């Protein structure tokens, strides 16, 4: 069976194993020469791929404990975020940090130490983890937290499955008063304006911007910035009076077949972007939590839009002080190449908390994510972007990456500590993925 990440590039031929218990995972670790855990395959590139053995964790999906008073949650790593949203939002609980899709597992959220639109106030998912149980390459299980096995804990947050198989995670859910969001849309005519908006609105809980990356010259970086807050019960609209949790998420549309590659060309993306920017009406709206956080989830299989060859996502972060100059250089390069990215998302990360994982992606500064169809031209462009990111001291997000070289890891300042830990715990690299081999991790 062909297996890939969300970008459908690269692919490997492998039949994933579906363990249901710790004992079964242990047995796979004992007999496979090389192995990687996999959640719901929403990382874009090759992080959850291995030709020898892939452990599909989605049958390890039991809730273990939940405290209705404090929001303390313990669950197995294969639990889907979409299940938690469906079950707990109506009870007034939401995850403290969410990525832009709910079709991820809790294990995947820990292994990539995912960030959300609230990074500047809440940090990344790992900041809300009390402890986790990790099965090491030798089959032993370790409870890791900021008090116990701290080095292993830090290496596992953002460690892309390379420290072991995450079995169970204890984390804090956050209280919400309604299943609605108060959203505010702001328009920025230039990149500088967009960045000023992020910085002047750092008190907003959630913030993110969509950039028209095909706009150039005076319009370079024009964007729609959205801010969001959970709607308090006191602000419920009259139609929802007395019913704080009444949202019924809509049925998903599915895109069953791949579009021909020409659907996503420069002209179609430019037309879409111009329209999208023009139609964005500044102002406030009340929207459902699900549509606010997961707009793309409404279209199942949208990754097929890019055609058979697949696509790559390029997400980097630049130190805050280098961000204005660096982002301009990158957007200039992208616009000059005429390589339209349908999704171009900009976000300002806050100062990294003390417990950030050794390979965690977020650090203070601006992060931009761009999508490109797989082609020789794309890879050439991305090499040019790599050079710019490296020159400004930035780093790439491994959960999105499918093609960068080991040199790009220089942006991770705790890389040596991570490698040393790997060397000590797993000298033969029993746990490995296409990504770990490509980057020499």
């Amino acid at each position: 069976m062909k297996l890939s990440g969300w970008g459908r590039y690269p692919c490997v031929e492998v039949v994933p194993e579906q363990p249901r218990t710790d004992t079964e995972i242990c047995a796979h670790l004992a007999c496979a020469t090389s192995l990687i855990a996999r959640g719901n395959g929403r990382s874009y590139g090759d992080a959850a791929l291995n030709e020898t053995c892939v452990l599909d964790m989605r049958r390890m999906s039991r809730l273990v404990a939940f405290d209705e008073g404090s929001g303390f949650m313990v669950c197995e790593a294969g639990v889907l975020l979409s299940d938690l949203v469906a079950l707990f939002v109506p009870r007034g609980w939401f995850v403290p940090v969410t990525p832009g899709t709910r079709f991820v597992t809790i294990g995947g959220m820990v292994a990539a130490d995912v960030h959300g639109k609230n990074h500047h106030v809440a940090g990344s998912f790992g900041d809300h983890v009390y402890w986790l149980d990790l099965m090491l390459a030798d089959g032993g299980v370790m409870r890791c937290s900021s008090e116990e096995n701290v080095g292993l804990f830090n290496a596992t947050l953002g460690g892309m499955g390379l420290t072991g198989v995450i079995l169970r995670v204890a984390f804090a859910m956050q209280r919400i008063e309604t299943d609605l969001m108060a959203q505010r849309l702001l328009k920025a005519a230039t990149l500088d304006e967009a960045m000023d908006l992020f910085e002047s609105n750092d008190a907003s809980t959630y913030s993110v911007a969509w950039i028209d990356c095909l706009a150039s010259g005076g319009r370079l970086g024009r964007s729609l910035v959205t801010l969001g807050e959970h709607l308090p019960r006191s602000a419920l609209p009259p139609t929802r009076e007395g019913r704080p949790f009444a949202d019924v998420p809509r049925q998903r549309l599915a895109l069953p077949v791949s579009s021909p590659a020409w659907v996503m060309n420069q002209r179609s993306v430019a037309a879409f972007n111009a329209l999208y920017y023009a139609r964005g009406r500044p102002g406030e709206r009340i929207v459902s939590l699900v549509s606010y956080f997961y707009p793309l989830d409404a279209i199942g299989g949208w990754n097929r839009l890019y055609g058979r060859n697949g696509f790559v996502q390029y997400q980097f972060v630049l130190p805050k002080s280098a961000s204005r100059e660096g982002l301009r250089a990158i957007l200039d390069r992208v616009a000059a190449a005429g390589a339209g990215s349908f999704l171009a998302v900009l976000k300002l990360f806050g100062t990294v908390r003390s417990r950030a994982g050794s390979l965690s992606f977020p650090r203070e500064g601006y992060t931009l994510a761009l999508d490109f169809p797989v082609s020789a031209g794309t890879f050439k462009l991305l090499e040019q972007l790599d050079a710019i990111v490296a020159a400004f001291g930035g780093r790439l997000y491994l959960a999105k990456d499918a093609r960068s070289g080991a040199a790009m890891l220089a942006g991770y300042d705790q890389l040596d500590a991570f490698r040393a830990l790997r060397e000590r715990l797993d000298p033969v690299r029993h746990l490995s993925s296409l990504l770990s081999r490509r980057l020499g991790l």
Partner: protein
Amino acid sequence: MLVVGGTSDMGRAIAHRHAAAGGALILTARDTARMEPDAQDIRLRYRTEVTVVGFDLLALETHAGLLDGLPALPDIVVCVAGLLGDHTVSRGDPIAAKLVMETNYVAPALLLGLVANRFEARGRGVIVGISSVAGERGRASNYVYGSAKAGFTAFLSGLRARLSRTSVRVVTIKPGFVATRMTAGLKLPPVLTAQPEEVGAAVAAAIRRHKDVVYVRSIWQPIMTIIRHMPETMFKRIKY
């Protein structure tokens, strides 16, 4: 709902579906310690009552005790338990074959027979048996399992006929291929292979819509019609 074979992927999916609609559950397992994490998961997800009961289907003398020991006779009894076995072993080893036959036919049929009598006496109830398309025609590659499922299907059909004038209903589920622990490692064609969750949904729908016999993926209906009608002279030669 009582689910016999709650540790299986299908049993778990059927239980989730029922609990999501607010129903209480009794789950049986031979090893209750293995069942407990799943039971706790269902309690936390759906805030419903879940009881775990130790039960070995092959201990025929315990069948009546299982039913009579419950706080109340359930509204719905689903028998999911089954055993595929290794056909190359079953072919040569009568003890192994007997285990497959008893687990898929003798024991489930006898248990559901007792359930039917109790449901009839009470005046209502739904019996769901998880049988198999393998029971529709004996295949060279799995006729030991297939013949046992054939017996089970015939038994359910007879029960249904017997109870047709009562308010007791009998549902036969033919899942087709399902991606479960039983079939892990087998190469199954994706279009013909359901996820356990689809079986859960099919069982819920069959109960709601008063169905008799259900193929989980409808594509199996025409396939099995062809297979049932194929002349034996031809059937015995095809590789299937």
